[in-house]
């Protein structure tokens, strides 16, 4: 079985500082994979390198058969990776509809685009109520829904999420995770960076733990959630 995403020896630097020192990981078609780790461990850097926002110093990233190294961020997006960045990064001065339309930027047929937007709005009924509002006026949770929805309009093969529950009230965060489960059940593969390790491991099939730019652990979600060291470091409590 070939991996949907195959990262080999990925190295990224900021100026003189090594942010990622040779990361290997794989995501199989249909999986949900969680990346865990402290702030600054390299999770976001990994996601940004995958989606082409950061130059790769060494290593390869394969998306199916395609080597992403030669592609720019927009081309990677068009290949079918939707990256929902940290902090949502919705286009605050545009309406919800416009944001969703931009999510389907690569879709040329107007009817197809409308169908996709409808489909996304079905997943997020809240967004339908706010369709003509400017994204900047939405609450944090609604913005997160919009950010994910914007990614979904592209009908990605791989959905990459960076801290989807960040700054959300627990109830809303739970809703988001519910939606992710739903999206996954419709066949989308997901890579997830999440501070709320409880929720992330509850959702994921497998998990990687990053520390100082390296993969420290790699196991099934269930095993990780049971591991006392992981619990101590990332799941809180004494």
């Amino acid at each position, binding site marked *: 079985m070939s991996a949907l995403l195959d990262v080999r020896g990925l190295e990224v630097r900021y100026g003189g*500082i090594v942010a990622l020192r040779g990361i290997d990981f794989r995501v199989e078609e249909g999986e949900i994979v969680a990346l865990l780790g402290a702030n*600054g461990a390299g999770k976001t850097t990994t996601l940004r390198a995958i989606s082409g926002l950061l130059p790769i110093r060494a290593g390869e990233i394969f998306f199916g058969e395609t080597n992403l190294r030669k592609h720019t961020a927009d081309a990677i997006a068009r290949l079918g990776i939707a990256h929902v960045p940290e902090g949502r990064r919705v286009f605050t001065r545009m309406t919800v509809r416009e944001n969703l339309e931009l999510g389907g930027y690569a879709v040329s047929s107007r009817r197809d685009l409308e169908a996709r937007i409808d489909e996304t709005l079905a997943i997020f009924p809240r967004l339908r109520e706010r369709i003509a509002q400017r994204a900047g006026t939405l609450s944090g949770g609604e913005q997160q829904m919009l950010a994910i929805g914007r990614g979904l309009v592209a009908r990605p093969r791989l959905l990459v999420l960076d801290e989807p529950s960040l700054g959300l*009230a*627990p109830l809303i965060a739970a809703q988001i995770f519910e939606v992710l489960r739903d999206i996954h059940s419709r066949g989308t593969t997901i890579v997830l960076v999440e501070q709320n390790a409880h929720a992330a491991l509850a959702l994921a099939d497998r998990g990687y733990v990053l520390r100082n730019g390296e993969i420290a652990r790699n196991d099934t979600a269930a095993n990780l959630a049971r591991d006392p060291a992981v619990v101590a470091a990332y799941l809180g409590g004494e």
Partner: protein
Amino acid sequence: MSLLELAGVSKRFGALTAVSNVTLDVEEGAIFGIIGPNGAGKSTLFNLLTAIYRFDEGSISIGGTSIAGLTTQRIARLGVARTFQNLRLFGNASALANVMVGEHLLLHANIIDSLLDTARERRERAEAERRARELLRFVGIAGVDEHFARNLSYGTQRRLEIARALAARPRLLLLDEPAAGLNPSEKQDLLALIRAIRDTGATVLLIEHDMGLVMNLCERIAVLDYGEKIAEGTPSEIREHPRVIEAYLGAPT
């Protein structure tokens, strides 16, 4: 005796109430923690304390002085220093220079001194530099003095920011998620550092997500949710508090 008193403080952004009717007393010499979910209004509260935002209702006083209408730099003069959730160092300047900026209020050289490099300017500069090096040692990053702040590792930057805040010899130190992104051993060092800071006489108010650190360090903790204070007490009280578990800590797995 209370160093910091908040009474019925509210802050609204348009329709959103970010801080709602918060009352808080922080004793002189305490280490006081504020926790709560992201977006609960913790950072907004800090921003009200340093006049980045103006509060809409209530009153805030520091050492008995009301800060209503004061500017950020006036509040700094009252002895308030802070760090930021997303580090705000002077990236293109040496670590030493960063700390020396922190000493701004301790120095008296005026424009003329600065223009002409007078004896006072030189004396103060030498003194400031000495103190700055000392502080870098105090926070545990001696030896990085000449490095540019932006080139330092994340943990070092966190400490450098604390050193800069300490340089003003604050009575009240506000730390916004100081442990964010630190590994467990760095967190242990941080814990010791914050205690050492308190032992110099400063009062510490911190926002933190890391429960281990907060529970170990703080004498009292306030919990915010949706801008409201839902609980306040000792660490053990907070740990047991049903609303806190519901809103923030979550049911134990």
